[in-house]
């Protein structure tokens, strides 16, 4: 196994593209090292992104906030603009693992690990985040929900990697929230995760919404019916119940060691209601 730590994106692409064997990206390493040590993967090449300066920064661009692939969750949560503008994404990122893990774990890594239970991904999907991919053919931007194609599988081609994530600029009256259910308080994997992003007008009426569920299907689910249940309402009890029902109906979870089908479907609705209330109240403050 070779370990490389290039200092430019181009060098990283070249290393990945030229590797004949199995190549893996190391950002925070909080998933990769665990899988490596437990024998799940046997890489021929590991390319560490943490020496590439451009990937270690958070930058305000004209169309949003760009978060480099080597930015850990803890750093994202120390960035005032990030926390003020995208509280749902930030609170999802700071739920990953433990305090120690958050000092390393990145949202790009969380995305590319392609776990259906990833915490930051439903929040990013709700926020319509865009992944920037670098590869042998150059650069391309794709919505984050197109990265994972199934548990552990991504749409990235050989030589490609996510170098950063753009959190698109928000209209006034927009905010988001993320909630997950775990039996403990930390160090756990979401049994259900819900990311919700809403926009409200001056009357407090919801004009746009996006609802994403984690851990209840093979991929992150975008529940359009749940969004429609909110739009045109002020988040009254009936609307929230309709939202919950839509989420429970959309969820197609499995019975496993973390929860039953019935439990996960119900909790998807319960958490969606709670997350929607938080997102709506945050959005009103952003008018």
């Amino acid at each position, binding site marked *: 196994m070779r370990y490389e730590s290039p200092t430019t994106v181009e060098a990283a692409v070249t290393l990945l593209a030229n590797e004949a064997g199995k190549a893996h990206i190391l950002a925070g390493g909080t998933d990769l090292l665990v899988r490596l040590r437990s024998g799940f993967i046997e890489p021929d090449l590991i390319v560490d992104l943490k020496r590439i300066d451009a990937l270690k920064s958070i930058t305000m661009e004209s169309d949003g906030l760009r978060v480099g692939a080597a930015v850990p969750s803890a750093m994202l949560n120390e960035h005032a603009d990030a926390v003020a503008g995208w509280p749902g994404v930030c609170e999802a990122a700071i739920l990953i693992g433990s305090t120690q893990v958050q000092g390393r774990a990145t949202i790009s890594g969380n995305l590319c690990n392609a776990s259906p239970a990833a915490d930051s991904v439903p929040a990013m999907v709700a926020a319509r985040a865009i992944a920037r991919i670098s590869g042998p053919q150059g650069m391309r931007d794709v919505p984050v929900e197109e990265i994972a194609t199934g548990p552990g599988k991504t749409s990235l081609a050989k030589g490609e990697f996510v170098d950063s994530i753009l959190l698109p600029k928000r209209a006034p009256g927009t905010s988001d929230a993320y909630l997950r259910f775990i039996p*403990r308080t930390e160090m756990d994997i979401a049994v259900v995760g819900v990311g919700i992003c809403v926009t409200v007008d001056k009357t407090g009426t919801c004009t746009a919404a996006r609802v994403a569920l984690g851990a209840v299907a093979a991929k992150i689910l975008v529940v359009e019916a749940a969004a429609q249940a909110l739009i045109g309402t002020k988040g009254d009890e009936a609307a929230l119940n309709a939202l919950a029902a839509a989420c429970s109906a959309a969820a197609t979870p499995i019975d496993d060691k973390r929860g039953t089908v019935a439990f996960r479907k119900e909790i998807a609705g319960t958490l969606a209601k709670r997350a929607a209330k938080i997102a709506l109240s945050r959005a009103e403050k952003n008018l």
Partner: protein
Amino acid sequence: MPLDRDPADRTYKVVGHRHNRPDGIDKVTGRAKFGADLAAPGLLHGRILRSPHAHARIKSIDTSKALALEGVKAIVTAADFPDHPQVLEDGELTNIRYNVMAREKALYDGHAVAAVAASNPRIAAKALKLIEVDYEVLPHVVDVELAMKDDAPILHDHIRTEGMEDAPDCPTNVAERIELGYGDVEAGFAEADVVIERQFRTGAAHQGYIEPHACLANISGDGSGDLWCCTQGQFMVRDVCAQLNGMDVSKLRVTPSEIGGGFGGKTTVFIEPVAVALSRKAGKPVKIVMNRGEVFRATGPTASSAIWVKMGCKRDGTITAAQAELKYQGGAFPGSPVSMGAMTAFACYQPKTLKAIGWDVVTNRPKQAAYRAPGAPMAAFAVESIVEELAHTIGMDPVDFRLKNAATSGSKSAYGPTYSDIGLVETLEAVKAHPNYAIKLGPNQGRGVASGFWFNFGGQTAVTLNLNIDGTVALSVGTPDIGGSRASMCAMAAEELGIPYHHVQTIIADTGSLGFNDVTDGSRVTFASGLATIEAARNAAKVLCERAAKIWGIPADAVTWENGCAVPAGPNAGEFPPMTIKELAKKAGETGGPIAGHFEVSADGAGPSFATHLVDAEVDRETGRITILRYLIVQDAGKAVSPAYVEGQMQGGAVQGIGWALNEEYIYNDKGVMENPGFLDYRVPVASDLPMIDTQIVEVPNPGHPYGVRGVGETSIVPPLGAVANAVAAAVGARPEELPMSPPRLLKLMKEQAQPLAAE
């Protein structure tokens, strides 16, 4: 051993005060050497091939390809553990041999089938993949009640139910039936005004020690050798490993490392005999370190259980009848702690009539190992649930109800013997007087109480104390320190010799340096090694007095030991200034040679410890998630030698019990394969899950120890399961009958029992 004097009147200079533990700095700085920290020149790395099947006949094992791999130095299978006579005549040793290396059949997912020693870990891992095992997969059973059925898959053809006169002569998974009790329970129930019965279930919980099993064996060409390992008992390891490998016990020296938690799970062997066999075959040192998956799949969790309890009481609270049927599965071999469950179930009370039946059952799960008060927590969960419900039903305060029925000093215990001085009543009264008992609860919050009992143990113990040239003391004990016991040994030796705490250094000696000691179990160490330490120090003091007498030219019995000095016993002995331990140590060579004291004993009189726990919990009614808001432990320590470590034991036991109650359990799929062999999905509580665990030590001196010490390590895990269940029942108005109370289970319970229980 009688009390020297009334401990309540004694003023201690060292004992009972708070001291830094001697192992503390090394542990927090990473200098302490644990099981995996030893290396040796020419070291080989051992790995174990484990069965992927819950139950399978091993038709053949072909190791030729693995042996041909460059760097592979030795492979062992069951064939390397032949039928030595000393093994065959000991049933438990035969079971241990089968458990450490499968023979004929693999009995559970993770059962060892072969082991490799190679020049590095990667080659060892590669070699495992080259070993070809031909399995015939057999039907399996992991549930205790299913395993008891007539048509259940049978694990062992030779098992017949012991303890049953009319047991049929055909193979069964029910290894033993036990029964105890007194009086006529039917008459007792007839006398009762209220009778409640329920069926409970508990999951299998693992001890969850942070340090995985690790050892290094180094067997020489002459057949003698060394073994270094993390264990709760080096002498047990020596005796078992030597016998399984057909060695004289004298040929194997075992040195215990620091231990990163044991909780009973390290009172047996798993990899140690295998490392010895590999080292002997390869002619080189061999190290084996388990990973966490191996720890879960192949070491001993405790039993899972199905427990039925029926109790009746009169309106005034008198318990007239107590009945229980306990079914424990202890994994693939007989020996579940069901008898302990039956004996402890009602040990806190004095029911007028009692009947308890226990069933020891084998299933396709790893062989259970001791876990902190083995067998008691699940029985207490069932009984304390019913006790709380009885109290509510007759409208009596649950602490008053317990006080009304509490076992007291001099009362006859539910399991037979008469209690000496015990402190259950004191713990109940302290709980009632505690501010936590009066705090007003909010919505969806509930309060639960539970009491618990553990026997405690004494056992074989040997201690040696040597005086150094500067008057400091080297103390050797044979019981690995799993809870701060070295600090307590230092304190007791210092107390007796009248020297400062830090003048005593305590080590855990290897098997070549000290007489036999039973393992660290049964909460016995501070009691038994402590007692032996005190007596060894007194023996040394006697020698010191003799030396002073020799110097002064007076009879030895005219000298006594006071405050670290030899002094004339009285005015008739003569006028001599006190002679310090330092002066006597310096002159030892001229006065008769090295000064030492030792003591060997089979310690009796380990007084039981009782505790009462008080919990406030809050339930999220929409998700079934439970938050522990407040937690109070009151426990009788007899005499707390090191109060901080007594509190630590109390808190640690409570935390493990809370984990067992809330989320910890072995989860199996339909193939009998464990689904959660890691800390991600085997959910022990993390620090942020818990409030500060409040502690209050009660001291009712144990008449069996010179200072009144009684063990405290195990009792603390007995009440939490019931206490948490009682708090949750009070919060939601439905009684949890199955542990863990994981959120899916609790949400389902709340849905199914929309009608709140009449009494709660």
